[in-house]
């Protein structure tokens, strides 16, 4: 065991896969020599060589498009988009090809591509550096979307993602990249894609969240506990495929559901969770399921971001309203 933050854990997972599988290559803007702007890939080029860990030209469509060719020719590329908000030039390659090649070739060409994507707000950054666009990708047939919230899950999920024969969008909550340290095994282990985790058992309300929002919910839960409420917290870990079973079972037990996300509220991951409660647990509900998510706006610049971000107080406020409904 070793104390790791999320940056260390992602680096460790990449190191393990680069070591054991010669078909794994890692590249992106600044991802080679410097180790990425967040230093997530630091040291990997030195250890595994410039042919396997390298800087690409500054072109996101090019990064994603070349990964398609590499995957078709037998490699397992792990590519980095510097920020979630920089991924838009690569949309055509991701939506038109990465997600579809398996279907288009009727299974002949698999696309074992991992797209690493630092996402989310709360880091006092410029436009295009703070957004949470996971719902867009979760809506695309052929993609899998994963978001860890802890160093342990970051390592285990990334290993699963690299070993998956399907393309995986691997969202890294950059706000908590270095905020949490946890004892993580230095051995290889994996966390399965498509399995949510019940982080805390409770009886009054189910809260579903993921990524950087988990920590905010946990702060709200301290307030809830003082107020005498019992909260069940589910960390989604995978957005698609969604672990409907775990969520539905919890909602049936508590009768109440709150989704917490930093995404724009409409047509988001939260909307899907609301639909799930409706379809799978309708007769068990004792209060209307509620989304606590961001405004449908562009993430404001740093001085205005506090208006946008979901705070523990806001989460507690909705927990109390839902329980008292």
């Amino acid at each position: 065991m070793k104390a790791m933050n999320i940056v260390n854990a992602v680096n460790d997972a990449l190191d393990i896969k680069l070591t054991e599988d010669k078909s794994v290559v890692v590249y992106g803007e600044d991802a080679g020599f410097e180790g990425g702007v967040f230093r997530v890939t630091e040291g990997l080029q030195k250890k595994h060589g410039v042919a396997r860990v390298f800087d690409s030209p500054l072109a996101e469509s090019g990064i994603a498009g070349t990964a398609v060719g590499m995957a078709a020719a037998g490699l397992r590329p792990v590519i980095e988009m510097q920020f979630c908000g920089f991924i838009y030039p690569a949309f055509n390659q991701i939506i038109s090809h990465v997600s579809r090649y398996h279907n288009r070739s009727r299974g002949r060409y698999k696309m074992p591509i991992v797209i690493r994507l630092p996402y989310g707000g709360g880091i006092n950054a410029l436009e295009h550096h703070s957004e949470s666009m996971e719902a867009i990708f979760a809506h695309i047939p052929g993609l899998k979307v994963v978001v860890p919230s802890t160093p342990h899950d970051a390592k285990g999920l990334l290993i699963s993602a690299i070993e998956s024969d399907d393309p995986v969008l691997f969202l890294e909550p950059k706000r908590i990249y270095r905020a949490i340290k946890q004892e993580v095994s230095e051995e290889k282990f994996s966390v399965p894609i498509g399995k949510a985790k019940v982080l805390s058992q409770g009886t009054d309300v189910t809260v579903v969240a993921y990524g950087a929002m988990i920590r905010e919910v946990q702060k709200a839960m301290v307030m809830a506990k003082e107020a005498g409420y019992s909260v069940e917290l589910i960390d989604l870990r995978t957005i698609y495929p969604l672990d409907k079973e775990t969520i539905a079972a919890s909602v049936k037990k508590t009768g109440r559901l709150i989704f917490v996300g930093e995404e724009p509220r409409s047509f988001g991951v939260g909307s899907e969770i609301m639909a799930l409660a409706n379809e799978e647990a309708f007769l068990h509900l004792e209060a209307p399921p509620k989304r606590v998510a961001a405004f449908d706006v562009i993430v404001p610049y740093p001085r205005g971001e506090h208006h946008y971000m979901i705070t523990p107080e806001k989460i507690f406020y909705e927990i109390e309203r839902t329980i008292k409904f």
Partner: protein
Amino acid sequence: MFDQFDPAEDKMLQVIDNNGKVISKELMPGLSDDEMLKLYKDMLFVRTLDHMIVSYQRQGRVYTYPPNYGQEAIGVAAGEVLRHEDWLVPAFRELGAWLAKGVTMKEIFMFNMGFEDGMRFNEANHMLPFSVPIASQLLHASGIGYAIKYQKKDEVAMAFVGDGGTSEGDFHEALNFAGVWKVPVIFVVQNNQYAISVPVKMQTASVNMAIKSKAYGIKGIKVDGNDIFAMLAAFRYAHEYARKEQQAVLIEAVTYRKGAHTTSDDPTKYRTTDEEKEWDRKDPLRRMKLFLEKKKLWSDAEEQKLVNEYEKEIDRQFMETEQTVQYPLEDAIRYTYAEMPQDLRDQQIEHEKFLQWKNARK
């Protein structure tokens, strides 16, 4: 060869003229009489197949189809140099190369009839399915080039695009990545003068397409795409260069789309009959036929007989395909993921329950 035909001087590689007369003997690729005849027959086959598919479309037996008519020399010459281990990253108007790679007629019929199964290309080693978003496939070739180099394999990737595709960002990114990475990729621009209705002068202010190679530090050459000998000479040279030097090449093949963009298009709206007649003189089959006739290797009678044979075989296989293809529900779902999510499986099961209900109602 690249220095001799510098795109900056707008030079174009040609071996025979419009009357089939050899104008640059030293560039004529080494070919036996039989090999020359095979090239011609391959072009004739592509032209026959192409015409037949257009007529099937008119009969409502296939959906929209993009004809190759007038551009046969490029695909056939490409097919001649591509080895089993080389990669073909297609656009959609190089049938000769597809067939040479091992794509079957039945597969071509199948996807034109509306079945993705036709794009599996089971027999064609190292061939990608074609991609609709213009020029996006070129980046796949650059990525394949990287994999070839990384795996230390003796392979080359060849990727096709049209003149309109050179305006897409992915065209430039693909050439740039291939240039920086120094990988064995041959990019082929079939400049057939039109992107649907838009003439090539509306696509670029460059003197030609081949010159774009210079911006990416790779070699480029402009070739008469209706001269099969010129195409073969250029492909052979580029193939050798890409392999030996581990470098990318851009080939511009100057040609003319004699047919419509697709069967939904009407070219009479945007081009003149004078222009079409001018290009009729440059037709790749006509020119090679004149060459072969001078050498007494070919005659009209032989041609008619062969076309009849081709038509019979094409029709036989077409009808066989028509009778055998099926599209079960699960085929619409099962290939979306390598590992199917439970939710998608549940969606299928839910729909099957509806179908059971529907059938019970009858």
